[in-house]
């Protein structure tokens, strides 16, 4: 909690109790009124009334200071003063300029004297003679969601029974229902549609609109001469089925999600795997994934139960959709990390709402939407979904294979576990059979070894001692083993962590009673210590001046405790590695070592990645929690990378925040504590992720001052032994045997595990029959079966997506200021105007959100997308403002048509290809684009579509067309794509090393890297939008950079040269024929005679100029000129 949050909470609580108090105060303090009049009123009038008085007509921050009531009530930020308590008074905080975000008066700090007077006045109890009622101020009263919803067309559900209008006369023009809608509007305006465009025009139009590539001369020829009555329909089908369809429409989509592969800002760090999202979009559009599913994948693709697979790689496609959330810009080392988060989340909400809903939810960050039925609560209710969902690089390799392997491994284990542990248990008796022989001898020897500074090490002593060997031989003991026993005793007597510590002490001479008492004391002491853990809280006093304070440990300081079973609301894992829950105490961990088939028995419950197979990938994360202590402690074993996401911040690259990353490595089999210093983030919301690097087990995550103690409970079996008269050595062996019996009987628990782990870890002390018989064979068979299944686990493949964490709600931030949160949280929910407020019970609730979005009752998703289709095919949507169907958007030109199309989309399985097909088959789309003066007078902006518009091609299409016409194009699909070409001109002090090829390897533009700080200059000049927000409608501008590029850019020149070479290799050298061919390739048509003449004339003139008979350079120059003809960058 920031200083300011605490301040607000503190004062709010006090303020309530105070409100009745001050009215009588003035009378109590006789000089008070005078003091107010002399010193306070003038300060208020001069400095505050301008913005906070009825007279000035301003109540900024909903605060009025011109009455006592107003002053005491305060504004959005809470009560202004607490009479009698200057320290708790907001007024003094703000006038002292302590808080950067709330300083008053805004422009000038008050003189110190005035501040002193205000302090004194509050100390006096704030005597204030001003009475009168403070005006009611709230602009919230005007905001009425139901009214807003009722008043604007776009919130009304899509009528499902819109019929095309009846026409007076249609002259045979309409081909489809669309045409009936369009013609009816034209007829109302007494206009007629234009005649049909030529076949040559139509094939170009269709190629560019559906694939973004020009037709080849042969394709044009085939279509123009096709006599089939359905030649056009056939062409449409062919293009809809083209693999390049998804590349053209994918580019449109990428504009909506501000697609880029780097994060911009100072260092332009890469966004890992971003290109896979692009490829996913291309594939999804080619596969005509129903749009409702496509939306679900974007919002909750990571949670789809049966994900869609990429047929080529069998990767989880659905999860990749949710990658779009994290394609935005990101800062490293933000000083104000929460402010940075709010901006990031804002961008996510902004993009989400415009792209899918055509609504500007972003406007509701600071206040209720000024025009639409979107409240500030809606905005923060939505922000909660994002707070509950983390950035995630997920292993998307064949999920079916992963599932199947996981299930098989679980089944294999379930089928074999009882048998294997029983067989193992049966070997324990043999193993411990000679403890009774070694134990007393070892104890005796150890007791004889002199102690003191010069004392020999037990092993040396044994090796050099003349009688040990004799003793060993006499007792039929193995000398090495005996030495090991002695060494073990030496170690165990000093280690309370050793489960046999108490036994060893007795063996070495301590009385049973004393030893048992010591064990019990240890248990009591460690239990007490664990209960009395202190937390060092670092409280900000001001912002950088910390005060340390100590408090007792509380239950909420336990962040995650995997010793117990988790319910599904607190188990957050990505990938399969950690299974469905923590591993239980007493469970065996099966290894691959034939000599040690059981690695260990799990003593306490723990999250472990080795229960089934570490070949799966994955991570485990905690819930989101507030940092409330100096140190966070992890109890773990094995190796893992730790990442603490503070306010969901990811781009860590110094100088700040490096500490959020930690590496865990226990370097052995022991459980360890790792302390993570998190003091810099006290008051912040965080979660911690653990990504294993090998075997990894995590027992708990908790706050603590110093390293938390480990409770050392007395093992009841050993206690019983010490309480009995049984001989120590024999008794101990019996204890092990009885633990093994319990294990075989399915009664394993913590104590059993502890004892049997001792057996496993002290193999060198125990008997090891050469052949463990049945057990060894059983284990070998199991290991073989397991490793066979493991081979079917696919190698990891990473993609960007989300991962659900704990359900987190956000408070409203007053005026969008993250330092002014309200205390109440807004439950996560979709827009109130569209769905009942219904907080999800656990997890983020994104899947339910996605389902609500695509419910036919939501009028936005379907309308927005069909309108986008229309926009891309006609250059203007039925609603021109394609990203904004709200009240400030443009009204639809054909509202009924829009509803008709939306309804059709839903009726026809949300197929976008079907929608595009319907449009391009219409007579409306097949009109000529030739302007008609008479119609233009009535409909100058062509809103009624009396002709097809002439459209400037998008930058990517122009570049692709250059490559296609020159023949350089490489139509390969997918992959990572080439790095962007850093032109010498672009290169600067912040450029990355290296550069992509100038022609992008001939790849289509959609595959060329989008590097935020080095955007392709040619594409930018032709209005490719900066990737920062949803851009459904690109600006079409006219800048001198465009002709300069087309005239002078080396890439364009290179393409002219490649093209000319290809022409010269075409088998003809007749200038006229070359010109014809060039025209066919460039424009999909033959030149008109005068054009041919001009072109040939140009070539001849150039030849004459050079005095050289070579055709090559003049042809290059002609090709370059043709690139610059406007027909090359426009489609009619």
């Amino acid at each position, binding site marked *: 909690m920031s200083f300011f949050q605490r301040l607000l909470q503190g004062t709010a609580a006090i303020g309530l109790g105070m409100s009745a108090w001050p009215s009588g105060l003035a009378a109590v303090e006789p000089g008070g009124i005078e003091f107010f009049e002399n010193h306070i009123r003038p300060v208020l009038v001069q400095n505050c009334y301008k913005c906070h008085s009825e007279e000035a007509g301003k109540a900024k921050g909903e605060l009025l200071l011109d009455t006592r009531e107003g002053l005491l009530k305060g504004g959005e930020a809470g009560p202004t003063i607490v009479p009698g308590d200057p320290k708790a008074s907001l007024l003094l905080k703000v006038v002292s300029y302590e808080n950067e975000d709330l300083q008053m008066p805004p422009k000038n700090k008050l003189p110190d004297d005035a501040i002193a007077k205000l302090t004194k006045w509050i100390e006096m109890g704030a005597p204030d003679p001003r009475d009168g009622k403070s005006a009611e101020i709230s602009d919230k009263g005007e905001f009425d969601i139901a009214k807003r919803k009722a008043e604007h067309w776009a919130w009304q559900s899509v009528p499902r029974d819109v019929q095309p209008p009846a026409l007076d006369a249609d002259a045979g023009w309409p081909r489809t229902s669309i045409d009936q809608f369009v013609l009816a509007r034209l007829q109302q305006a007494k206009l007629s549609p234009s005649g049909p465009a030529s076949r040559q025009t139509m094939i170009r139009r269709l190629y560019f609109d559906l694939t973004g590539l020009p037709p080849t001369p042969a394709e044009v020829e085939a279509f123009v001469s096709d006599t089939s009555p359905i030649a056009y329909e056939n062409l449409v089908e062919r293009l809809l089925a083209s693999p390049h369809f998804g590349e053209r429409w994918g580019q449109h989509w990428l504009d909506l999600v501000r697609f880029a592969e780097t994060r911009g800002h100072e260092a332009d760090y890469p966004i890992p795997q971003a290109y896979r999202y692009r490829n996913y979009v291309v594939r999804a559009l080619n596969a005509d994934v129903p749009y409702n599913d496509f939306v679900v994948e974007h919002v909750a693709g990571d949670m789809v139960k049966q994900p869609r697979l990429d047929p080529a790689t069998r990767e989880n496609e659905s999860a990749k959709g949710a990658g779009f959330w994290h394609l935005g810009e990101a*800062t490293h080392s933000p000083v104000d990390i929460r402010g940075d988060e709010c901006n990031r989340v804002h961008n996510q909400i902004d993009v989400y709402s415009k792209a899918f809903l055509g609504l500007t939810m972003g406007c509701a960050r600071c206040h209720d939407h000024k025009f639409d039925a979107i409240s500030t609560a809606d905005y923060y209710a939505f922000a909660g979904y994002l707070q509950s969902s983390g950035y995630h690089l997920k292993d998307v390799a064949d999920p079916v294979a992963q599932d199947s392997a996981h299930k098989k491994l679980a089944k294999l284990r379930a089928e074999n576990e009882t048998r294997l542990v029983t067989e193992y248990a049966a070997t324990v008796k043999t193993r411990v059979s000679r403890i009774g022989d070694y134990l007393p001898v070892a104890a005796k020897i150890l007791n004889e070894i002199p102690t003191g500074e010069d004392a020999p090490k037990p092993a040396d002593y044994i090796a050099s001692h003349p009688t040990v060997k004799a003793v060993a031989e006499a007792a039929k003991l193995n000398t090495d083993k005996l030495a090991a026993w002695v060494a073990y005793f030496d170690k165990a007597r000093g280690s309370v962590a050793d489960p046999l510590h108490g036994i060893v002490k007795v063996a070495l001479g301590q009385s049973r009673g004393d030893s048992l008492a010591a064990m019990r004391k240890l248990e009591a002491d460690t239990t007490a210590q664990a209960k009395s853990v202190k937390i060092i809280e670092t409280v900000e006093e001001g912002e950088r001046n910390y005060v340390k304070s100590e408090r007792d440990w509380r239950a909420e300081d336990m962040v995650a405790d995997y010793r117990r079973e988790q319910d599904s609301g607190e188990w957050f894992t990505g990938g399969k590695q950690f299974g469905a829950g923590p591993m239980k105490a007493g469970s065996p961990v099966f290894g691959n070592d034939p000599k040690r088939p059981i690695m260990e028995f799990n003593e306490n419950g723990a999250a472990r990645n080795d229960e089934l197979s570490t070949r799966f990938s994955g991570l485990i994360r905690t819930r989101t929690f507030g940092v409330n202590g100096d140190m966070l402690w992890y109890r773990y074993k094995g190796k893992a990378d730790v990442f603490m996401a503070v306010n969901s911040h990811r781009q860590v690259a110094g100088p700040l925040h490096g500490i959020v990353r930690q590496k865990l490595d226990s370097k052995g089999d022991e459980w360890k504590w790792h302390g993570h210093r998190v003091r810099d983030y006290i008051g912040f919301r965080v979660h911690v992720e653990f990504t294993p690097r090998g075997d990894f087990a995590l027992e708990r995550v908790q706050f603590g001052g110093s390293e938390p103690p480990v409770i050392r409970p007395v093992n009841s079996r050993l206690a019983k032994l010490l309480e009995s008269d049984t001989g120590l050595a024999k008794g101990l062996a019996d204890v092990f045997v009885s633990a093994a019996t319990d294990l075989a009987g399915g009664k394993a628990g913590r104590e059993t595990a502890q004892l049997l782990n001792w057996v496993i870890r002290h193999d060198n002390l125990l008997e090891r029959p050469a052949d463990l018989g049945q057990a060894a064979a059983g284990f070998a068979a199991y290991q073989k079966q397991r490793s066979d299944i493991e081979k079917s686990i696919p190698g990891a493949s990473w993609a960007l997506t989300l991962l659900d964490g704990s359900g987190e709600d956000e408070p409203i931030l007053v005026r969008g200021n993250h330092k002014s949160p309200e205390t109440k949280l807004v439950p996560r929910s979709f827009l109130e105007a569209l769905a009942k407020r219904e907080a999800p019970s656990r997890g983020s609730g994104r899947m339910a959100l996605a389902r609500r979005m695509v419910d036919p009752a939501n009028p936005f998703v379907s309308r927005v997308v069909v309108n986008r289709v229309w926009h891309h095919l006609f250059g203007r949507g039925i609603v021109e403002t394609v990203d904004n169907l709200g009240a400030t958007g443009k009204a639809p030109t054909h509202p009924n048509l829009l509803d008709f199309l939306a309804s059709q989309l839903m009726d026809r399985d949300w197929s976008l290809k079907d929608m595009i097909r319907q449009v391009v088959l219409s007579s409306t789309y097949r009109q000529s684009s030739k302007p008609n003066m008479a119609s233009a007078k009535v409909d100058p902006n062509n809103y009624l579509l009396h002709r097809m518009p002439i459209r400037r091609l998008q930058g990517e299409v122009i570049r692709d067309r250059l490559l296609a016409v020159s023949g350089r194009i490489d139509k390969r699909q997918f992959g990572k794509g080439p790095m962007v070409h850093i032109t010498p001109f672009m290169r600067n002090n912040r450029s990355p090393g290296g550069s992509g090829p100038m022609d992008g390897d001939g790849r289509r533009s959609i595959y060329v890297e989008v590097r935020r700080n080095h955007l392709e200059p040619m594409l930018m000049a032709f209005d490719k939008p900066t990737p920062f927000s949803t851009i459904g409608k690109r600006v079409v501008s006219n800048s001198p950079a465009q002709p300069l590029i087309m005239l002078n850019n080396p890439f364009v020149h290179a393409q002219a040269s490649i093209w000319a070479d290809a022409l010269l290799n075409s088998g003809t050298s007749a200038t006229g024929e070359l010109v014809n061919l060039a025209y066919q390739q460039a424009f999909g048509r033959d030149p008109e005679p005068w054009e041919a003449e001009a072109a040939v004339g140009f070539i001849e003139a150039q030849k004459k100029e050079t005095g050289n008979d070579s055709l090559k350079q003049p042809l290059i120059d002609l090709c370059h000129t043709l690139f610059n003809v406007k027909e090359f960058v426009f489609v009619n």
Partner: protein
Amino acid sequence: MPRPMSRREMLGRCATGFGAVALSSLLADPAYGKAKSPFAPRKPHHDAKAKSVIFLYMDGGVSQVDSFDYKPRLEKDNGKPFSAKINPTQFDNIGKTLKSPWNFKQYGQSGLNVSDLFPHVGEMADELCVVRSMTSKFSEHNSANFFLHTGFGVQGRPSMGAWMSYGLGTEATDLPGFVVLNGGLIPSGGWDNFGNGFLPASHQATVFKTGKEPLADIRPRESRPGVQQAKLGLLNKLDQGVLNRLGKVDELESAIANYEMAYRMQAAVPELIDVKGETEATRKLYGLDSKYDPTRTFGMQCLIARRLVEKGVRFIELTCPRISGNDRWDAHGGLKKNHGDNSRATDQPIAGLLRDLKSRGMLKDTLVVWSGEFGRTPFAQGSNGRDHNPFGFTIWMAGGGAKPGITYGATDEFGYRAVENKLDIHDMHATMLHLLGMDHKKMTYFFDGRDMRLTDVHGHVAHDLIA
């Protein structure tokens, strides 16, 4: 098909070499009139005091307490722990209070205190309108740069120059409205600091570099003179055919007209950067004779800025020269060398620019603004650096209707936080627009469901700064 001789053909035939074509007749032709150009000058909202802006961007953030905001208290506290409350900083490596290693001296009638970093600019003190109470919202370069340039701390919003080009067009006929003279350093956040955001791409900065190719793709690549003209002649013919075939629609006509501007730029840009015609005295004034490379670089930028103003370009931004061994003004360590080298590069050229504008009578309607994205801390980072400080720093304006010879606002006694007449970046934008004749609340572009502004929903014109 008989065809009349086109303007292109005329051009082609008249040409005796690149750049030698007389263009005046072309410009007078209503068919290619300014109405079609995105840069056509537009009427301001009110009478403008300034016609053009030269924005001297001090990349990385100049230390106010070492330049224009003299604080004796720092001398007293030097080496002691900083005694005021400290906000979190970018590097979180707080050292002791650090006095300025430079001496301060009063200049001119106004008696402005200027450190030895800026002796030349100091001489121009009576032209300066110094604001000592500027604030920003961000402690990181990238966000602060975006904020300074676009009024938002995030990527993708139009740069102030783009807004001014959009709002006012340009008086220049052969150059666009917004030009950046890149001295070698591109600010953190990259080219986006000069982007058009959601405005049409025509308003993005045209970035000039020093060197052989001052502007991307400005140099014709044809190997022989006359080839480009021949191509353009053919092109014009073929384009007329396109108009005939497809129809005379605005989109096509504008695109054709656009080639005229590009063609003129091909000639205008080399002319512009060819300063041979400038007198020896002028060249010296700008420091073009300096032995120090970066001074010559920045001097050339300043001189070209003046020439751009003469052409009528609306907004010219200068970025700093790249000085080896220094990371712009961003003196996290080695303050003395860093600021010393940077001032050596910029001081004389800036003073020269002001003097030159003044003597040519151009200063009165040219607004010069000198600013970094934030200032620096009065306490040390480590032992001899200063960290970022958005809480109070100094900028200055000169000419263009800014009140000369004044200082405005103040920081606290340490020079850490603005406490008197606090201004923020939005106020600076509002004031600049006001001087250009634009009401910052009326200059809008519809995007995101609302009328967007350079000043978003903030900003006040600082009338006290206006002459």
